[in-house]
């Protein structure tokens, strides 16, 4: 039986795959197309949040942008001395940046919430947590969307 493809062909494919990976996977730099920066600045009062403590859980690839499960959790003892008061969730690729704000208190026991969100296109989701001492923490997660979720 004759081999169906030769060495040269395989090498070409390899280069192609590598090029796609290089272009696609990092998600590209996030330059804001909507009001994401203003929304975050309003929430933090102009402070720059520190990366960490926040865990944002979304699928890497969402087949249907109409309903993408999202979990946000923030590390905190959740006592009256030290707790997470608010968590802002925004996106940089939807027509409007805002998604939701969760309000916690020591009575919540744990700063964790899950909901389903709409994503118009592949983009970054950003969570910003506000602690009771006035500090801010953040996490970002890129999601690729196959079918956008804003109708139209």
């Amino acid at each position: 039986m004759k081999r169906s493809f030769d060495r040269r062909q395989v090498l070409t494919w390899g280069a192609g795959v590598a090029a796609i990976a290089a272009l696609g996977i990092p998600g590209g730099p996030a330059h804001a197309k909507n009001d994401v920066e203003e929304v975050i600045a309003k929430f933090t009062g102009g402070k720059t949040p520190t990366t960490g403590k926040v865990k944002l859980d979304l699928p890497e690839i969402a087949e249907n942008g109409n309903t993408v499960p999202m979990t946000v959790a923030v590390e905190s003892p959740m006592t009256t001395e030290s707790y997470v008061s608010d968590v802002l969730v925004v996106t940089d690729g939807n027509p409007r940046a805002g998604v939701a704000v969760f309000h916690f208190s020591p009575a919540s026991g744990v700063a964790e919430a899950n909901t389903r969100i709409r994503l118009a296109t592949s983009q970054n989701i950003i969570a910003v947590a506000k602690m009771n001492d006035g500090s801010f923490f953040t996490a970002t997660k890129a999601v690729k969307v196959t079918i956008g979720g804003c109708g139209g």
Partner: protein
Amino acid sequence: MSVKPRIKLDKKEAKKGELVEVKALVQHIMESGQRKDRDGKTIPRKILNKFTCTVNGKEVFSADFEPAVSANPYIQFKFKAQESGPVVLTWVDDDGTKIVGEDNITVI
């Protein structure tokens, strides 16, 4: 239109200080106000913009929703069991109407 939200607590009875997980689903169109109808007119926005959960009258969790929350919004969160009483979940629509659902927790 009266909508009955579906609410599920992961336990009916909890020890004091134990975490109780709440899952809730409510039927709602969550119209974003971004879409246009066949004549090119914008379909007016209609979303549930506020969610609150109280246990025995005390607020344990709340959330503000934007149009980017999916239709038939689902919400999952936890609270720390402190005292027995009704667990009341309230969603507020853009037009001010409220959708209310209730369950109970017993602290042992």
